[in-house]
């Protein structure tokens, strides 16, 4: 029996179209648009000005507080504008526009480093490096990594979990990275285990990525402290709380963090970024992005500079397919629909999904027939139909008492609802109000 989380979950069609496509390097864009709010928390503060020359990897916006992150220039070039542009949230956000210097060779160097095994830095220096080099969670949440790694003296961590689940349909960025950079990821794990003094690590991978599981199994033969666990394919297993439950049978308390049960969870992409930062002095200026869609001719995976407009990616795979009605930043379950393709790739962009006519529109909303399917699939043990009703009727205090704030917005309820009810939309709305009311404390 493969491990998984016991309560709820769904199995949407996997559609991993690009799992056999090696990661290609996207040509360096002529202009990059680097937003200063690419992470959860306080936006970074811009420290460059118009007409400034910047080097590749130079800090261009400084962390604005503890829960914040530095932002580095993905290219060598000239700052042309400090502008407001629409990002994937649909809102206008402040952003640094840099024109790439076509003559600067550092822009075009293939940065393939040989594997470096010796860890030269002290634990404290490693953690500082992770903070300085702008590492955030690359699984999609973009939570600044140094915050997760800042463990108070009273907390004890006994297990590091590496999230290689990639439960979102279509996306294969993590899968490809695990296949192509397995040794580096393993090294990254060892760096973190050393820095945090954690006795063991488990890499959790869903069973639809057998090749990645086998790759790691071979590599860890000499590493008794690191395990690989194959997981049953079930969405949203990549959710931290679900993954911790699946691998260790530990349940993160209601308003708590994995830290409260002695665990830290990091995505494989983040681990790779940590490896590069610590061993090769490379800040987070690029990431793997899956560009995919059923009608996308050359769907594939790419190394993409942060700030690259999404239209560059679309062009690279052969242009926008006929009949495209929706462009999603991320996977189909949790990704954000984009207004246009000028939106730049940010640290949290794991994929670009193009959806055609027949799948783009929602079905007509019908009355709830109380089938209870949303309750069955909710991985958090909530009652989505009830939360939607309470939010719709403005009964936010009740919604708070029904634990609306613990919703992880995985979308399983909306996915299964036979009446096409916008459950998650109303729950999000309810959450936003309840957060302000702060009534869900008890």
């Amino acid at each position, binding site marked *: 029996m493969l491990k998984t989380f016991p309560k709820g979950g769904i199995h949407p069609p996997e559609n991993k179209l690009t799992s056999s496509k090696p990661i290609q390097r996207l040509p360096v864009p002529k202009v990059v648009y680097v937003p200063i709010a690419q992470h959860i928390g306080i936006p970074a503060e811009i420290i460059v000005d118009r007409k400034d020359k910047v080097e590749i990897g130079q800090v261009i916006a400084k962390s604005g507080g503890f829960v914040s992150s530095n932002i580095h220039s993905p290219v060598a070039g000239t700052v042309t504008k400090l502008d407001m542009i629409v990002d994937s949230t649909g809102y206008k956000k402040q952003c640094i526009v840099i024109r790439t210097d076509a003559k600067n060779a550092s822009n075009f160097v293939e940065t393939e480093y040989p594997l470096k095994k010796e860890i030269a830095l002290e634990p404290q220096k490693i953690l500082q490096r992770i903070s300085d080099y702008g590492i955030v969670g690359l699984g999609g949440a973009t939570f600044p990594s140094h915050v997760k790694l800042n463990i108070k003296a009273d907390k004890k961590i006994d297990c590091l979990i590496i999230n290689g689940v990639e439960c979102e349909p279509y996306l294969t960025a993590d899968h490809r990275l695990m296949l192509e950079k397995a040794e580096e990821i393993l090294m990254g794990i060892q760096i973190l285990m050393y820095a945090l003094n954690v006795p063991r690590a488990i890499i959790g991978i869903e069973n639809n990525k057998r090749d990645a599981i086998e790759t790691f199994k071979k590599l860890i033969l000499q590493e008794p402290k690191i395990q690989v666990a194959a997981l049953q394919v079930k969405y949203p297993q990549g959710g931290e709380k679900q993954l911790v*439950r699946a691998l260790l049978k530990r349940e993160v308390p209601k308003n708590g963090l994995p830290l409260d049960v002695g665990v830290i969870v990091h995505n494989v992409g983040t681990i790779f970024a940590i490896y590069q930062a610590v061993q090769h002095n490379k800040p987070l200026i690029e990431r793997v992005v899956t560009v995919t869609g059923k009608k996308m001719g050359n769907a594939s995976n790419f190394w993409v500079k942060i700030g690259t407009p999404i239209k560059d990616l679309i062009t690279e795979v052969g242009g926008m397919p006929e009949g495209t009605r929706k462009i999603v930043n991320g996977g189909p379950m949790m990704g954000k629909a984009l207004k246009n393709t000028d939106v730049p790739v940010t640290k949290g962009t794991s994929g670009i999904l193009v959806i055609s006519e027949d799948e783009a529109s929602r079905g007509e909303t019908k009355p*709830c027939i109380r089938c209870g399917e949303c309750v069955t699939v909710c991985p958090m*043990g909530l009652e989505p139909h009830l939360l939607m009703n309470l939010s719709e009727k403005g009964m936010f205090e009740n919604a708070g008492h029904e634990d609306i704030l613990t919703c992880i917005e995985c979308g399983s309820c909306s996915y299964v609802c036979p009446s096409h009810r916008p459950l998650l939309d109303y729950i999000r709305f309810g959450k936003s109000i309840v957060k302000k009311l702060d009534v869900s404390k008890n």
Partner: protein
Amino acid sequence: MDSPPIVISASPHVHSDRTSKRIMYDVVIAMVPAFLVSLYVFGINAFIATATAVVSCLLFEYLIQKYLLKTAITIADGSALITGILLAFNLPAGLPIWMIVVGSLVAIGIAKLSFGGLGFNIFNPALVGRVFLLVSFPVQMTLWPTAVENNTTLADAVTGATTLGIIKDGLQFGETMTELSAQLPSHLNLFLGITGGSLGEMSALALVLGGLYLLARKVISWHIPVAVLGTMALMTGIFWWADPQHYANPLIHVLSGGAILGAFYMATDLVTSPVTKKGMLIFAIGIGVITVVIRLFGSYPEGISFAILIMNAFVPLINKYFKPRRFGSKIKAKIV
């Protein structure tokens, strides 16, 4: 470059192909075997009764929505169709047509639309229609036609009273189960449907077949049917074990009357049953207990319709008190 108009909506951007319409039509498909058996046993009367109930349910829904409520017409969603079929399944063949029409009006008009239509009704509409007819026209509603009258090939296999009716009357007149056994159909005949009763409750085999289809299509879960029938078997089993001369054995109880029809098709009605599995079990055990109490100690030979309606009334309460366990609300894990 963007082929307008681009759709912007919040996630998720994909949806399962399970729709309420598909669920409704799966229920209709599941009832086909039982309908075929009713045609075989009762001939044209079964067809007339079912057609009347279905047409009047659809018609009343259309008329009430169009002229009285002035809302959108929802007759295509399949729910009124199901109500019609289920109502017919709960009636004796040969019931006067006008009574079937009245039953349909009560089911659709009072039990369903006056509560707000699909999804808002508290009670199972078909059962409200049936119970209304049962208390209004007790004679006609317990007049079970014999097969001879209907020119079927089953000759006198079908009796003038239902199995449960024979038992109830016999025991009241001081007969014992041994004495009654000659009048009762065999267990095999009960299972196949060679017995007396409402249109759709005849054949346990056909009903279970449809029930398995519903389970396979994930329209229903096992909790309600298993718990209803299990509770009935357990309770009647205890009485039978204590006094086999005055109580029928559990197999007779489960196979006769509306037990299987109720357990698989009516208690499982999504709208009027609890949403959690825990709640479903409580609801179903309640139905089992009330049914057995009515059958053994009440004045009606059969009680599952009443049992389901009574438990329907408890559904909001069950939903309130039997909630799913919130993730992380009870911490079992400890740090090793």
